C-alpha cells in the first residue's frame, strides 16, 4: 500500500520535499504525483505552448508528457532533478510532434494578460519610435509567434528556454543533452534570425 501523499498544508509553509513526492509517486501514489503535476504544469505547458504557438496542441502534449513521465517513473534514477527529467520528456515529445506536423502548423494563440498593456518595455516597442507605429500588441504577438515558428526546433527551443522561460545555459544544456557551447551558439544564431524577421518591430538603438 502506498503511503499517503504528503500534501502541502496551507498552515505549514515548508514545501514538501520533491524527492519524497517522487518516491511516493514511484510506488503508484497518484496523490503525490498530482502534487508534482501542480508544481510543474505551468512551466511545462508554457514551454510546449511557446514551441507550438498552439494552445490545443500544448494542452495535449503537456498531458501526454505527464502521463509518459508517470509511466517512466520507475526508470528515473535520480541522476538529474525530476524537473530536468520531466522537461526532457516534454521537449522530446514536442520536437517529435513538430517534426510530424511540419508544413501543417497553424497558430492558436492565448490571450495576453492585463499586465502586458502596462509593461514599459512593450509600451516602448509600440510607441512612436517603432517603425510600425500602428502595430498593436495583438499584431506584435502574432508577428513574434510567426517569426518563432520560422526557426528550427532546436533554435526555437533555446530561445524559449532562455529568453522566455529564463533558464540558465547550464540547465538548458542538461535538458537538451548537449554542451553549453552548443547552447550559446544556437542562442546567438536564433537571435540573429529573429532579429532579421522582426526588424520592423525592433526599436532602433
Amino acid at each position: 500500500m502506498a503511503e499517503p501523499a504528503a500534501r502541502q498544508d496551507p498552515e505549514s509553509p515548508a514545501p514538501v520535499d520533491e524527492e519524497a513526492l517522487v518516491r511516493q509517486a514511484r510506488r503508484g501514489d497518484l496523490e503525490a504525483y498530482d502534487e508534482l503535476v501542480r508544481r510543474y504544469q505551468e512551466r511545462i505547458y508554457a514551454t510546449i505552448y511557446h514551441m507550438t504557438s498552439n494552445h490545443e496542441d500544448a494542452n495535449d502534449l503537456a498531458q501526454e508528457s505527464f502521463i509518459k513521465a508517470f509511466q517512466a517513473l520507475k526508470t528515473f534514477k535520480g541522476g538529474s532533478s525530476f524537473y530536468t527529467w520531466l522537461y526532457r520528456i516534454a521537449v522530446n515529445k514536442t520536437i517529435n510532434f513538430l517534426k510530424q506536423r511540419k508544413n501543417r502548423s497553424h497558430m492558436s494563440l492565448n490571450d495576453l494578460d492585463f499586465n502586458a498593456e502596462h509593461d514599459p518595455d512593450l509600451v516602448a516597442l509600440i510607441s512612436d519610435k517603432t517603425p510600425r507605429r500602428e502595430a498593436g500588441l495583438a499584431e506584435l504577438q502574432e508577428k513574434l509567434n510567426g517569426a518563432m515558428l520560422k526557426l528550427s526546433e532546436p533554435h526555437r527551443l533555446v530561445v524559449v528556454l532562455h529568453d522566455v522561460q529564463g533558464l540558465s545555459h547550464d540547465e538548458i544544456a542538461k535538458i537538451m543533452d548537449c554542451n553549453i557551447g552548443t547552447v550559446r551558439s544556437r542562442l546567438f544564431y536564433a537571435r540573429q534570425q529573429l532579429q532579421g524577421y522582426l526588424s520592423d518591430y525592433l526599436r532602433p538603438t
Partner: protein
Amino acid sequence: MNESENNFESLRRLLALKRHEIPPPGYFNNFPRQVMARLRAGEADVPQAIAAPSWLLKFFQAFEAKPAYVSSFACSLCLLLLFGIVYAERPDATEKSSIFSALAAPTVSLVDAKSAVYSSSPQPTGLMVNTNPVLSLEPVAMLFGQQNPLAQPVSLSLPGNN
C-alpha cells in the same frame, strides 16, 4: 559587439511579450484533474504487448507526415496486383502450375481420367482440376433428363413383396 548586444536586448524585450500569453482562466485548475483522470482510467497501465508496436506506429506516422510515401506505396501495391493478374492469365503459367500440382498430388491423374468420361468438353488443366473435390469420382445424374452413360437401371426386388 555592443551594438549587437543592444539589438539583442531589444529583441529580448520583445520576447518578453510571450510571458504575457496566458491560457484561458481556470485552465491550470482543471489540468491536474484531467491528467489524473487519464491515469486513473488506466491509460498508464496499457501493457506494451497490447499497445500498438512502435515500428507499426512509426510506419503509419511516416505516411501521415509524407503523402508521397502513401502514393508510392499505393502505386507499388497496384503494380503488384497487376503483375499477379497478368501472370495468372498467361497460359504457360497455368501449365507450369499444373505440372507442379501433378507432382505434388499424383492421385490427380485418376481424377482427370474419371472426369474426362463425364464431360465432352476438354477439362482445364492445372489448378482447376486439382481443386476438384474427391466426391466427383462418384457418377452424378445429368441435368435435363439425360442419362448418365455409366448409370444402369436397378430392379430391386425384396423378398415377400411380389
